[in-house]
């Protein structure tokens, strides 16, 4: 951004100087790149450029059983990480737990160890008759009603996924005959399947759901806005694929089979 006034330009240049990514801020502590990361327990050089994030360690084990060529890397807190080798592509699979805070922590540390592309396989509750039970939703953008995305981005900046990854996921699902929709998901910090009937502010929640349904929100979930906000901040690509089912349920076999096509 430049203006005609050279003094304004000078002031703007001084004002917009910034130190950049944190590894340059902490240059005297550069063992941040040699040690294991604090929460996920991986270090730079382990893992791969692609990562598939899932909700629970059981789902990680399910993926490992299908692709039998795998190697367990670490198991700390919620983060069980394995590296899978297929004939076309290698990718890291890691479990993140429920909710945006552990996902944000995981994504920050994975970015430090060198991951470039983030995929998330999660669950959501369908808000519209367009999205049927057990159908997939590829989230193109998320409504930021959770807390983590507001820490990362001001409210005016949207949480959107990467177009190329979304198109690749769509074509991979179309080739495999998996039924899906592409649309907007509402991210809230409570379990959309069970909690709304038991909280004091239930009426306010129902009213907000009606407003967002008119805007075209297809589902309510607990992860998408956080993932896209963190991806914007760390300058990496992300794509979120949600299944309209209960949380922590088993991954269906067609989805596990389609992972190499979605990732390539």
């Amino acid at each position, binding site marked *: 951004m430049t203006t*005609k006034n050279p*003094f304004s330009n000078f002031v703007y240049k001084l004002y917009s100087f*910034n130190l950049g990514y944190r590894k340059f801020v902490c240059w005297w502590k550069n063992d941040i790149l040699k040690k294991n990361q604090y929460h996920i327990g991986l270090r730079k050089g382990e893992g791969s450029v692609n990562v598939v994030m899932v909700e629970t360690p059981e789902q990680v084990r399910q993926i490992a059983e299908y692709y039998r060529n795998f190697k367990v890397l670490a198991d700390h807190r919620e983060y069980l990480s394995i590296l899978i080798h297929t004939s076309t592509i290698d990718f890291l699979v890691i479990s993140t737990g429920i909710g945006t805070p552990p996902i944000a922590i995981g994504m920050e540390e994975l970015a430090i160890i060198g991951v470039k592309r983030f995929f998330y396989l999660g669950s959501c509750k369908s808000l519209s008759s367009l999205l049927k039970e057990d159908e997939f939703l590829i989230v193109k953008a998320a409504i930021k009603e959770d807390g983590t995305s507001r820490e990362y981005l001001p409210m005016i*900046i949207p949480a959107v996924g990467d177009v190329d990854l979304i198109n690749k996921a769509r074509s991979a699902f179309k080739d495999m005959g998996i039924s899906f929709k592409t649309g907007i998901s509402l991210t809230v910090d409570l379990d959309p399947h069970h909690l709304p009937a038991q909280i004091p502010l239930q009426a306010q929640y129902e009213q907000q759901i009606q407003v967002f349904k008119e805007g075209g929100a297809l589902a309510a979930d607990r992860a998408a806005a956080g993932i896209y906000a963190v991806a914007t901040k760390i300058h990496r690509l992300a794509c979120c694929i949600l299944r309209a089912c209960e949380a922590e349920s088993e991954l269906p076999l067609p989805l596990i089979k389609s992972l190499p096509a979605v990732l390539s």
Partner: protein
Amino acid sequence: MPTLIKKANLHSDILNVSSNQIGKYILLPGDPARVPFLAGPFEGAHEEARKWTHVTYTGLLDGQKVSVVSTGMGCPAMATTLEELIRLGAHTFIRVGTSGTIQRKTDPSDLIITWAAARDERTSLRYQPMSFPAVADVEVTTALMDAAHDLSFGYQVGISQSKDAFYGEHDPLGMIASHALLEKQKIFERSGLLCSEMEVSTLFVISAVRSVRAGGIMMLGGSKPQTLENITRVCTHALKYLIHRDMESQRG
């Protein structure tokens, strides 16, 4: 594909045009003087209506009626024009405009395809709360990307900033709250926003609420006249791709 409105004879007093005078696929520039140039590649392009800043040209593209309607500057004007056109039955919109750069190393001859927009304005707040994302339609954006790629033009895809004050960006030190404006611009540069314009976020939010499809493509300020010709060709090709893909999905 969104459902089409079947009634054919609605008339808009604001645009001075009827629903049988416009097509379903519409390009939306801001400047009325740019409308004949954008409608040039259409077959039989002619002026249908002219009122205030709203100039309407309609023509045929591969057998389908397409229109170019100028909106004027700013989100309120875009909201008015868009609501009228949706009421008259149109379902696909592409915003074609100029914008300013935010990042330092942008090539001024690049075309910027706006996949989403930062809602730094207040018109879209009347439709959805600020947490709602202003995001384009996937098919329209893919058609624009494919057209720019097939014609070998340099392009970037990303998030733009929709602001309400032109001179807030071009002369921030002259504004009363200059410190706040400079901070905001620093935030936008750090979050990777590509360009700064004044209409796109309202277009995306209203099109989400009314279930129509929208996309946007921007030229940068300081670009040569060749870029206007490039963007016209990209828009024409993108409309052709959309028309063909819609016909295929309706058949199959």
